[in-house]
């Protein structure tokens, strides 16, 4: 009997082509669009709008596969949106896509698939899975997508061995250009749809406005201070700032200033010169290891400190007195290491593991 796969379809090019490829590979493909968020206006047409559902349905019918809509609004709100908000309130800058992959796509959706006797889940992510062998220490590996400009392994570092064993990434070996070509060739109307960039539940990229709307909170004004604690100006709420940011810093100083740290305890934004935002070290927690079972001794790897950052050479080691945290020491100083973002470790194009930056 054919193996069954549940594929998350957003109506976009990537997931549509992924569904097509799976079908060609002989899987019994079942398309699902996840309804996760209500607040999106139609014009923005991101992944959870009604038009996305319609696009996905149209693609599914073109491919001759069944299509269903699943409601994940409640868990998405709890696990992604509320997490996003609470992180910002703590002065951190979260990556909600990582949370969504962990809890929704490879969490809830995979669970549903399992309960329905469907062997695999799939998405249109640009990443590859290496099957276990002696060479991999019998572990499933997560590998960068072949198209390095589209690689999405960073947002998938939380996948467990169990999840990897049940996931399929049919686009892993393809370049985006080729994916668009396939979409055109098979006559998908979405072939020229532009890539989604922003966080799907926040329109206009206006995070602080979103947080204000959602929390209905009045954010307290506070001081903008320099590294020595001298007050340089005022801010309208720490949720408007992220490390490395230059915009929105109104001070008495004439030179360009950047956010270095957000101090929630004192409701302060600490700023400094551009050189001050470069640091050598970071600490990460909430770790997930893929290529190794756990970190036993210091390891020389490359790391990404945000989705689109370059890989940087570093050494990772356990911090003796705090279990479940690692110290990452970079060979060269890194710009704007941001608490709340994830750091992902690589050996060439293999994901070793990753965690969330605490400081």
């Amino acid at each position, binding site marked *: 009997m054919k193996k069954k796969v549940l594929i998350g379809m957003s109506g976009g090019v990537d997931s549509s082509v992924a569904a097509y490829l799976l079908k060609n590979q002989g899987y019994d493909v*079942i398309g699902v669009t996840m*309804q996760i968020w209500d607040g999106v206006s139609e014009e923005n047409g991101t992944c959870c709008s009604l038009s996305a*559902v319609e696009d996905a349905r149209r693609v599914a019918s073109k491919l001759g596969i*069944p299509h*269903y*809509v*699943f*409601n994940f*609004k409640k868990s998405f709100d709890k696990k992604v949106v509320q997490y996003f908000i609470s992180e910002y309130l703590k002065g951190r800058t979260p990556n909600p896509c990582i949370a969504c992959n962990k809890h929704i796509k490879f969490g809830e959706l995979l*669970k*549903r698939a*399992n*309960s*329905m*006797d469907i062997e695999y889940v799939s998405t249109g992510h640009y990443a590859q899975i290496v099957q276990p062998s002696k060479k991999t220490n019998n572990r499933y590996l997560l590998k960068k997508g072949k198209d390095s400009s589209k690689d999405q392994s960073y947002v998938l570092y939380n996948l467990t061995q169990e999840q990897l064993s049940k996931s399929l990434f049919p686009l892993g070996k393809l370049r985006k250009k080729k994916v668009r070509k396939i979409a055109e060739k098979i006559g998908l109307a979405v072939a020229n749809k532009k890539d989604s960039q922003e966080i799907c539940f926040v329109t206009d990229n206006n995070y602080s406005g979103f947080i204000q709307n959602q929390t209905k909170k009045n954010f307290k004004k506070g001081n903008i201070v320099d590294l020595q604690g001298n007050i340089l100006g005022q801010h309208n709420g720490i949720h408007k700032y992220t490390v490395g940011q230059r915009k929105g810093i109104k001070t008495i100083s004439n030179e360009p200033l950047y956010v270095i740290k957000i101090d929630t305890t004192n409701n302060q934004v600490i700023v400094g010169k551009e050189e001050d935002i470069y640091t050598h070290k970071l600490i990460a927690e909430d770790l997930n290891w893929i290529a190794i079972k756990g970190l036993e001794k210091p390891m020389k790897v490359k790391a990404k400190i945000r989705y689109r950052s370059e890989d940087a050479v570093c050494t990772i080691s356990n911090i003796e007195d705090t279990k479940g945290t690692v110290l990452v020491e970079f060979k060269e100083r890194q710009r704007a290491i941001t608490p709340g973002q994830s750091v992902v470790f690589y050996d060439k194009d293999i994901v070793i593991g990753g965690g969330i930056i605490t400081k």
Partner: protein
Amino acid sequence: MKKLYYFDNSATTKIDERVLKSMLPYLKENYGNASSIYSLGRESREAIDSAREKVAKALGCDGKEIFFTNSGTESDNWAIKGVAFANREKGNHIITSRIEHHAVLHTCEYLEKQGFEVTYLPVKKNGVVDIKELKKAIRKETILISIMYANNEIGTIEPIKEIGEIAKEKGIYFHTDAVQAVGNVEINLNELNIDLLTLSGHKFNGPKGIGALYIKNGVRIENLLHGGGQERGKRASTENVANIVGLGEAIELATENIEKKGEYVKTLREKCIEGILEKIPDTILNGDREKRLPGNVNVCFKYIEGESILLMLDRLGICASSGSACTSGSLDPSHVLLAIGLDHETAHGSLRLSFSKDNTEEEIDYLLEVLPDIISKLRRMSPLYNKE
């Protein structure tokens, strides 16, 4: 092809061969506009009149009281907006229930924005409108009561006769959305104080895109559509002759031996309900055990999502729904299930099966064979179930 088990007759029904046959001439050679005076037009006119008589006969009213529309939704909109706008100087209050179809609820919400006041009556646990609450809600400004004949999700049949009497006594117009009832239960307008009644062709083996509104002689109502003088000046639009003919044929067939057919469908329903309740623990039957549509089964399986049940049934060729077809796009828990007091979690695990005369006992046997397995599989993976 894989055998299809069609258990979603509340969503729509299969068109009857005889209905289709009656329609075909009007999609082919008899294409005349019913308003034209030459023979081709007159044939269409006659066909419409004859269909109108069939509808009137089936309901026990006069043909002049039947107006064809495009759908049940249109009929509901017309009845409620038409009565509201025509009787505005008399009052601005409307009474309806919390378990109405969205065609009624959203129309009422629209009227609220136009300055009308609406009372949404609560229902009892079995889905029956509370008559005491209804009486309490009546004000001197009340101009319309709109309560459905039978609920589309849980199948509960409302005390229409009683409500009609109350409305008559107080001089308030009474509209009922009978979309689920017509063709399934016997309705005799002579015995009921109903002023307006909505019906829809595709719910009783007729075509889609055709409905009718019964408007009792003398009811003050404004038009919804303005244009030509069709339907005696009350509903503009070139008549959809084929669909009207189909509706006439379908209602005639559906109401013939309606009681006997109902008895048969009821045996399927009972077999299904008993089988499910016996074989699957932690299951709740929604709606009233007795006062329900002959073909309606609505159950909640605790700890799981209706979506997953439907998907698995679909893969076995079983057509069912959770909630009504009109709301399943939204995937929010059904307002009907919430109104009868279910919590969100439970309401999510609902399954509606609606049978017709075309279903067989063997089909129910098959359902009862596969369903317990599906439910236990889904529950095994459910975090809610494992917590308990």
